[in-house]
């Protein structure tokens, strides 16, 4: 079943086309990686799906319902969550509050000003469970801004997965981490996205080939190929456009 579908999506900034007609169908439960050179438009694509940017033309559907040009909070409420390439947390709130806020809507609290969160035992338990998962339990009462970089990335991920969305977009979740940090982050991503749909932008090919069921290669705002990791690796056009230079550089 297709859970997320992009149809002829384009995006221009001014006169500059950045996304040039993307068609993509993501299956429910699939782990999908998007790779491509810097500036290809990967983050822009995520911004279009999650509602940060409006599309110039085309359609995006989540579970069959159009979501393009909707505000981010409406898309989030339909079960799509995301993380950001540049850490995007609530810096002056502590780690616990960061995660708890990410749980509020999906727990049904909406804009309530009559529930006291101190008494919301289930919510607080779930928050602690997420903190355990992302390994930040011991930092629960630190202001988020005071965390080390890798911990902030873990929190970034925690905010994205806390609400239990069934489609999760992760934009370069392990970028800037050391090798071992990245390894454990990947384990974590695997664990928390189990049974869910994951779309992930990632540069590290080992991680991509390891995690993804399918890969899309985005080059200059267009999808060059969408296929299994093995076929992508052997695709001559992909090698020429992208993988070749990557392996040469590495």
């Amino acid at each position: 079943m297709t859970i997320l579908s992009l149809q002829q999506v384009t995006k221009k900034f001014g006169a500059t086309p950045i996304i040039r007609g993307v068609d993509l169908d993501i299956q429910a439960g699939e782990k999908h990686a998007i790779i491509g050179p810097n500036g290809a438009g990967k983050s822009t694509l995520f911004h279009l799906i999650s509602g940060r940017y409006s599309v110039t033309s085309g359609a995006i559907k989540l579970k069959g319902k159009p979501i393009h040009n909707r505000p981010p909070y409406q898309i989030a409420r339909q079960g799509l969550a995301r993380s950001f390439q540049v850490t995007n947390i609530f810096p002056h709130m502590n780690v616990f509050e960061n995660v708890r806020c990410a749980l509020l809507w999906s727990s049904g609290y909406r804009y309530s000003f009559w529930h006291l969160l101190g008494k919301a035992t289930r919510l607080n338990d779930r928050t602690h469970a997420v903190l355990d998962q992302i390994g930040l339990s011991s930092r629960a009462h630190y202001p988020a801004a005071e965390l080390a970089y890798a911990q902030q990335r873990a929190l970034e991920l925690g905010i994205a997965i806390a609400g239990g969305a069934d489609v999760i977009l992760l934009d370069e979740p392990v970028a800037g981490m050391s090798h071992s940090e990245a390894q454990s982050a990947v384990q974590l991503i695997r664990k928390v996205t189990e049974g869910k749909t994951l779309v992930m932008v990632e540069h590290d090919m080992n991680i991509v080939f390891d995690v993804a069921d399918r890969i899309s290669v985005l080059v200059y705002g267009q999808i060059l190929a969408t296929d299994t990791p093995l076929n992508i690796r052997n695709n001559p056009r992909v090698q020429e456009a992208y993988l070749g230079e990557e392996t040469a550089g590495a």
Partner: protein
Amino acid sequence: MLKKLSIWVVFLAILLILPLLFDSIMGISILNQMAIAIVIALSYNMLLGQGGMLSFGHAVYFGLGGFMAVHALVMIEFETVTFSVTLIPMVGGLFGLVAAIFIGSFSTRKAGTVFAMISLGMGELIAASSLIFVDFFGGEAGVIGDRTFGPPFFGVDFAQDVEVYYLAAFWVFIATLFMYLFTQTPAGRMANAVRDNPERAEFIGYSARRVRFISFCAAGLFAGIAGGLFAMNFEFLTEENLNAATSGRVLLMAYIGGLGYFVGPIIGAVVLTLMNSLLSNYTELWMLYLGIMFVLTVMFLPRGFAGFIMLHQLAWHHGRLKTLALPYLVTGVPALLCAASLIGLIEMSHTEADIFHFLGLPLNPDQLVSWALPVLLTLGAGYATRSSLPQLRDAWHAANTEGKRAK
């Protein structure tokens, strides 16, 4: 839980005991003003400290609530309506809420500069309309009511200021409690989230605008309650109570007290009310000193008085607070002396009297030698303060790091 409860019990006890300690006409009058200031400053912090909305027009909701409350008093007087004047603050609150719903519906669309400018514009607009809609605002003369005409409340007719104080204390307690509880709700927590990062808040399901709107309405409600208390206490309102100067004073209170802490605005309200009522008896330059204090606070205590107190948490935690007493004294005494003689200088240059009493010494401002002493004292005390700073810094360092080692 028990600890939190005991804080509220202590707060209530203080509210009840204060009028016994300051049992004079002036004492009660100041306490009443403090009560009003606490509610408005706390309500302001729902916007700025907790919601990240810098408002230059918060007095609008205070003033509108107050005007409506005076009209309610008049209606009670003429028996158009009959209810106890103890509910007058709620009348103010409801009207403040209505005004906030109306204005907030468009002003909370954005935070930042846009919000600040709209708040300024609305403040000017409402202040200007007070001279146009004379029936409601009473023009330049304002509107006058009388709080003693309502049905007595258990025999109390509010002819005495101290009776008003106890009513105000009740409302301060209720308003403070509910403003605190608001911070513990989903809407209150999301207000913090939107303050920190409105964009990310939208990706976890919340419309930043709606979150701001809810805080804005709550702030309008409590500002209106403060306005109702003002109407009960002073029984008249003028344009001055909702103009930009009043809004500015509210901002000062919250800021000086400390935006980042729930009690901050309470401290600010107490300090500024005291300065306002006491200092203004001694000098017409008190606004100047208030301005200087604000600038110094912004520069050296960006987290306000409450933040300064909280800085000592670590040292206190490890029982090393007393090691700071002596260094504080060594720096504080000359600093106070320096400030006092500087104030003396300012006052002496301002005075028109022939004899100026400088720290008890009669000096003649027309003679040059009279200036030598205060100038020398200012410089000397300033130098002494400066030279003591390294010691204070070391002591501060020791008190905090020593504590860590003990852990």
